[in-house]
């Protein structure tokens, strides 16, 4: 679902290009000149981002989200979401990443993934959920963005890919030691967060998410259930604005899941389980 501002290595780039409308535009233009020399092979550059570099970029990205809204001050809740999330992530392609999950203290309804295995969902989204299966499915959707590095796709579509790759390259070379580069990276990340990922990548994360949830022993209909909740909410709610702006409409996502799932996963719904933790940690009956 949800959002995802996932980016991986390169999302940053997007920022770069998107930056045409920011005060940093001049700088990006300057960068463009030298990028042509330094990043002759973009495809190569994007595949050269190592996992530690991807994680470092993801950390910066997560720090921005945490700057917008801190974690809910509830260790039991945070620990629960990490344990559940880690279990879910074990059933996708990158089980060995140092996955971290968190619940943001925001009533906005949204969830985010960042490169390298960071997943954040808002308290507002959690409050709409009926069950652990719904939470597991949302986390699985976010995990899908990370394992597929969907941010790279977002970058590829941008005209400023070279500029973006350059910022990324600078960051990788100099790390967070250079505040100026870090600040360019951060503004790039913000652009990706505000634009969202490619629509097809969101639909892919939906299709993958239900399967990852089912592999983890959860009811794969948790995701359609969340989408039905979102679909029933008033789209004018300000708390929904960013998620709705960065994702296909919930009804369209349900249509796509309807076609993709058919009855294929029905039998896994019947055998699904949940822990007793969800109700306890979220203080619900």
């Amino acid at each position: 679902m949800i959002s995802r501002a996932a980016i991986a290595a390169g999302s940053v780039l997007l920022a770069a290009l998107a930056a045409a409308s920011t005060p940093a535009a001049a700088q990006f233009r300057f960068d463009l000149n030298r990028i042509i020399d330094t990043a002759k092979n973009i495809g190569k550059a994007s595949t050269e981002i190592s996992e530690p570099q991807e994680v470092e970029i993801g950390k910066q990205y997560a720090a921005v989200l945490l700057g917008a809204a801190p974690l809910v001050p509830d260790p039991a809740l945070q620990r629960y979401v990490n344990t559940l999330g880690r279990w879910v992530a074990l059933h996708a392609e990158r089980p060995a990443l140092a996955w971290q999950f968190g619940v943001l203290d925001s009533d906005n309804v949204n969830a985010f993934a960042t490169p390298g295995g960071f997943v954040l969902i808002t308290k507002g989204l959690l409050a709409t959920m009926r069950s652990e299966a719904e939470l597991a499915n949302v986390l699985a959707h976010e995990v899908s963005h990370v394992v597929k590095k969907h941010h790279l796709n977002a970058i590829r579509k941008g005209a400023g890919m070279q500029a973006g790759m350059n910022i990324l390259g600078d960051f990788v070379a100099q790390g967070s030691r250079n505040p100026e580069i870090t600040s360019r990276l951060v503004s790039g990340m913000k652009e990706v967060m505000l634009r969202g990922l490619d629509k097809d990548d969101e639909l892919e994360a939906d299709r993958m998410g239900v399967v990852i949830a089912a592999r983890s022993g959860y009811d794969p209909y948790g995701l359609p259930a969340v989408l039905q909740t979102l679909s029933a909410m008033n789209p004018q709610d300000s708390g929904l604005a960013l998620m709705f702006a960065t994702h296909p409409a919930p009804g369209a996502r349900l249509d796509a899941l309807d076609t993709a799932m058919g009855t294929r996963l029905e039998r896994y719904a019947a055998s699904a389980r949940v822990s007793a933790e969800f109700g306890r940690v979220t203080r619900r009956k």
Partner: protein
Amino acid sequence: MKVNLLILLFACSAGIALAQPHGQEAGYAVRQTELKQEPYSDAATTGTLPERAPVKIVSRQGGWLKIESASGAGWVRMLAIRTGATEGAGGDSGLKQLFNVARSGSSGTAVATGVRGLDREQIRNAQPNAAELGRMAQFAASEADAERFANGAGLAAQAIDYLPAQQPGSAGPAGQ
């Protein structure tokens, strides 16, 4: 209404300890679909829900919704139903401007906005919070933690292939 609003505000301030009144959602059928006596594909069929029929969602189980409709009550496949059918039914109540709280559609979910948060502007103005990032790391769970949790809950891992991307022009949903 006033009382409801107070309850909402209180619930919001209590964070996620928010009881969700999920009962009584409204929806409609996106296609003709069978009404079943039980939430299983091999349960007895008790009727047919026509396309676009309005329904009241009473409860949920797995991929099934228990509904009430003019065609009768029973269980239908979740993905044959869409929610939020009525255009414009849930317009802005005006409370948002007054109290920065909005009540959402038929789910009755409360959404509040504050000074801090994840609105567009708030993200634009956000400064990276390294301390909070460090706090987040403290809650990380190991693979062993996750296995223990799953064992305790009786969660059984399954081997399942990913779903194929839909092909343009391919057949529609397999389920009725």
